[in-house]
């Protein structure tokens, strides 16, 4: 929990596992954690831009997903990203859809 604002929860997604013996993680220290979070945000935004969505982090605790019309969704774990994004975009993000694969290949 955030001690200042009382926001519950944190992102314990498997891609950002807590550093403990044996477990692979890039969360070894604060800087590494921030660097990976920034990198993940950039790559996620590249994918989301194909549907004109934008993801940002809120105080390192939650994610805010916004549509071009101003709709927003707040969630606290990366595991919710694609279902929330699909709902906001009006159709699901399907990584096996050939059209979507083509648009991923076109991202520069």
């Amino acid at each position, binding site marked *: 929990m955030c001690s200042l604002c009382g926001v519950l929860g944190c992102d314990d997604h498997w891609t950002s596992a807590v550093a403990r013996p044996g477990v*692979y993680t890039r969360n070894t220290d604060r800087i590494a954690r921030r660097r990976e979070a920034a990198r*993940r945000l950039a790559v996620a935004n*590249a994918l989301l831009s194909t549907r004109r969505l934008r993801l940002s982090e809120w105080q390192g605790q939650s994610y805010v997903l916004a549509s071009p019309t101003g709709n927003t969704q707040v*969630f606290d774990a990366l595991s919710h990203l*694609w279902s929330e994004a699909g709902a906001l975009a009006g159709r699901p*993000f399907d990584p096996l859809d050939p059209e979507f694969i083509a648009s991923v290949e076109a991202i520069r």
Partner: protein
Amino acid sequence: MSGPTPVHLLTGFLGSGKTTLLRRMLADPAMAGAAVLVNEFGEIGLDHELLERVDDTVVLLKSGCLCCTVRGELAEALLTLHSRRARGEVPFFDRVAIETTGMADPYPALSTIRSHPVLRSHYRNAGVVTTVDAVNAPGLLDTRLEALRQIGAADLLVLTKTDLAPPGRVADLVARLAAVNPSARVLTAPEATAEDFLAEAGDTPAAPADALPHHRDGNFRAETPVTSFSLEIEEPVDWTGFGLWLTMLLDRHGENVFRVKGILNLQDEERPVAVHGVQRLVHSPVHLERWPDGRRASRLVFIVHGLDHARIEASFRAFDAMSRRVTARGSVA
């Protein structure tokens, strides 16, 4: 005690010998400290207070995300056990074995342990053992998706009733099981020891290396094929892109990805990293000490239901390359 208590899940189709196997395992000193949860009325005469009954209450958490499907009563039973252990009301236990019902998909139980906000601090998934009845399994593999899900989720497959089945049929079944789940070990019930039962999923992450070098399909039902294939990638994989790709794949197709298991050759990493998941659940990735056969390449085994292998590979590669481009363009410091 330190760290979360390991939970071993025992599943298998109706009448496949789960209880018989569990009873034998519990007699082994290695299992002396195990608490047991049975989610149907078990026949084992457990004479201590650790036996709890678990029903099929299913609770969906906020946002309806399927990865948060929680079996309420399982969570309740595990939490009660934890508190009673802390208060000294039950004999100390160092691990938990859960026997599921014969029709159960193991995924919700795994997901409950992984996703429950309190449980996940006290327990961890250690492995899935699936019993396979050598007499009836061949028919089940053709008709019951539940049986395939149980086999797909397994780290260890235990063949039961092999003495009742013709030898040819057992050999054929072993080949079919290897095609459905090449990442699982296969043992006959008499061979299986408590040590095998308790082996952690992370202890055998190298399985794909000796499982199959290239595509090998196991088609079962023409209308809904469950197939397995392996993906091999020589060049280092981008972790960020991989994470977003697998998360999106499982979000959209999780119920049809029975299993993902393998090792990754990650960029900027000397040692291999093992990943494994069951449907929408992905376990924490683990660092391995060394490359299983000295060959530095990523190898992933997928067990999928009706998904196109070539498209999964194309998608994986597109995400990987895209992630590199985005990272390299300097938008990230």
